[in-house]
């Protein structure tokens, strides 16, 4: 695996298709300029960087090539750039799939986070109630159970509720699967809110409901953003749930559409890769706007 990396690594940094300043800095940085050089770590890191960047770079430039140039041109160089692949992807109902993904992602993430927040607030503030402790235990046990393992009964339930092949078929289970981890993270955060603040709200005559939204909610905001991003990504990228619970083209979400697209247009590699790029753009935009939040969201609950 060292061969392709070493031959192409030299021209990768300058040609990297991600933010401008990034490429420039990488290219001019001396290797191992530190006082305590970490040769092994540095070498591995640069090798692995090549392995990561080369496919990404290849996807982006290939998606702009006409199909004819795909077989003839140098795969690592741009050639006769065209937007026709993107055009054909968009003409293949891409916007509808995109919209489906947005509806399902927003429709699942927002309620999931709000309901989890309410539950977490009750679990932390309601303290010793047997019912609340029982609920907490149920959520904690839910953490251990992989989604894949319950897909068959979920399919049965969705059929019996006559929800098969609808947005709700994806939204309801997605909310449910998001709850355990969200409650856990949010409860940990609400626990960190100083008790004096709750006391002073109570002195001012605020109800628990008011305290929850006007005190706990704003103070938990970083965690709410993190959890929303994490769960949003889970739903956005989810594949098995839509594969099992939807059927028609009208209900198709993006990951499923990519797969179907490859099945239909498999020979037209540039068009398939254009669909990959288009499906990733929203998350790339999120990465550019709020990298810190996004990365925190990805490791939600794991890095603490």
């Amino acid at each position, binding site marked *: 695996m060292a061969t392709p990396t070493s031959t192409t690594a030299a021209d990768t940094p300058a040609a990297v298709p991600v933010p401008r300043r990034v490429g420039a800095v990488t290219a001019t940085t001396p290797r191992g300029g530190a006082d305590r050089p970490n040769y092994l770590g*540095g070498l591995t890191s640069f090798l692995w960087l090549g392995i990561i960047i080369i496919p990404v770079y290849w996807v982006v430039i290939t998606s702009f090539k006409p199909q004819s140039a795909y077989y003839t041109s140098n795969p690592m160089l741009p050639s006769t750039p065209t937007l026709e692949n993107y055009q054909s992807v968009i003409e293949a109902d891409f916007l509808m799939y995109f919209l489906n993904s947005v509806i399902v992602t927003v429709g699942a993430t927002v309620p999931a986070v709000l309901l989890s927040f309410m539950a977490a607030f009750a679990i932390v503030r309601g303290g010793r109630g047997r019912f609340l402790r029982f609920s907490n235990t149920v*959520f904690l046990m839910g953490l251990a159970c992989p989604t894949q393992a319950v897909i068959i009964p979920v399919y049965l*339930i969705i059929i019996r509720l006559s929800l098969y092949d609808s947005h709700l078929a994806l939204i309801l289970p997605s909310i449910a699967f998001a709850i355990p981890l969200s409650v856990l993270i949010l409860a940990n955060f609400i626990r960190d809110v100083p008790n004096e603040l709750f006391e002073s709200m109570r002195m001012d005559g605020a109800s628990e409901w008011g305290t929850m939204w006007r005190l706990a909610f704003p103070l938990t905001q970083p965690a709410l953003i993190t959890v929303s991003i994490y769960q949003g990504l889970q739903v956005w990228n989810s594949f098995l749930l839509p594969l099992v619970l939807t059927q028609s083209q009208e209900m198709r979400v993006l990951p*499923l559409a990519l*797969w179907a697209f490859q099945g239909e247009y498999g020979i037209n590699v540039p068009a398939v890769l254009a669909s990959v790029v288009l499906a*990733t753009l929203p998350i790339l935009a999120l990465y550019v706007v709020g990298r810190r939040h996004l990365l925190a969201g990805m490791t939600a609950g794991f890095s603490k």
Partner: protein
Amino acid sequence: MTSGSVGARQQGSLSWLVLPALVLFTAFGVIPLIGVLVLSFTSWNGIGEITLIGFGNWVSVLADPALVHSLGVTFLIMALSWAVQTPLSILVGVFIAGQQRYRAVLAVLYFTPLLLSSAAIAITYKALLDPNFGLGASLGIPFLVQNWLGDPVLAIATVVFVVSWQFIPFHSLIYQGAVRQIPASLYEAARIDGAGRVRQFFSITLPQLKYTLITSSTLMVAGSMAFFDLIFVLTVGGPSDATRVLALDMYLRGFRGNMMGPASVIALIIVVVAVLLAMGIQRLGGKDAGESQLEGA
């Protein structure tokens, strides 16, 4: 630290707040988990009647050599991807945790695989590894021109590679965060004692990363029990079932083979194995928990 009197006074009025979440999770989490157990004792083709048949599915699945094969493939991919990902993630994580500015810039590039869905990654690699029209073929690099997804051994290697490609950034991210929390004073003391770079790594960095190693390994193991999207799009379990991991086996039996009963048995095996493995890893690392200097960090 809720004070007792306040908590007691409020619990009655707060309990209902947990209800919506509890109801939804019960409907689509708890009941299905019981449901999968019930369905494992029934015969159902996914559309028609569900009939109770007793232990038939269990007997046939447990006696089926295909189960042993799927378990073997799952564990093989799990072990190999752990062995590839862990050292690389630690090396990369330690490296990008450094203070130099260019490393932060590198980190931005490192995390690009995190932006892609498993389906997108699988589709990309399918095109990229194509022996006739892929990257290797058009660059003319003989090593890369192989039937990556058509040969049973190479297909396993490919799956392990693509899994690593997808998840090493995530685990590096966790290690990077953990390395940054190691007190600098430990390294200063080591340097005064004359410990070199390698010695510092093995005597300070690695022991301090113990809990991160456990977390990361648990996630890798639990994740590989649930591998579905990537392998489904990449190989559909092929060639000749070489990459048919448990989750894929469950899907193919249930939704392609219309045998929900045996598929439910597989689903339960996934749950049990996943929980046992997670508990095993936690125990492995939990034995001398008192020694950690990083507790609560």
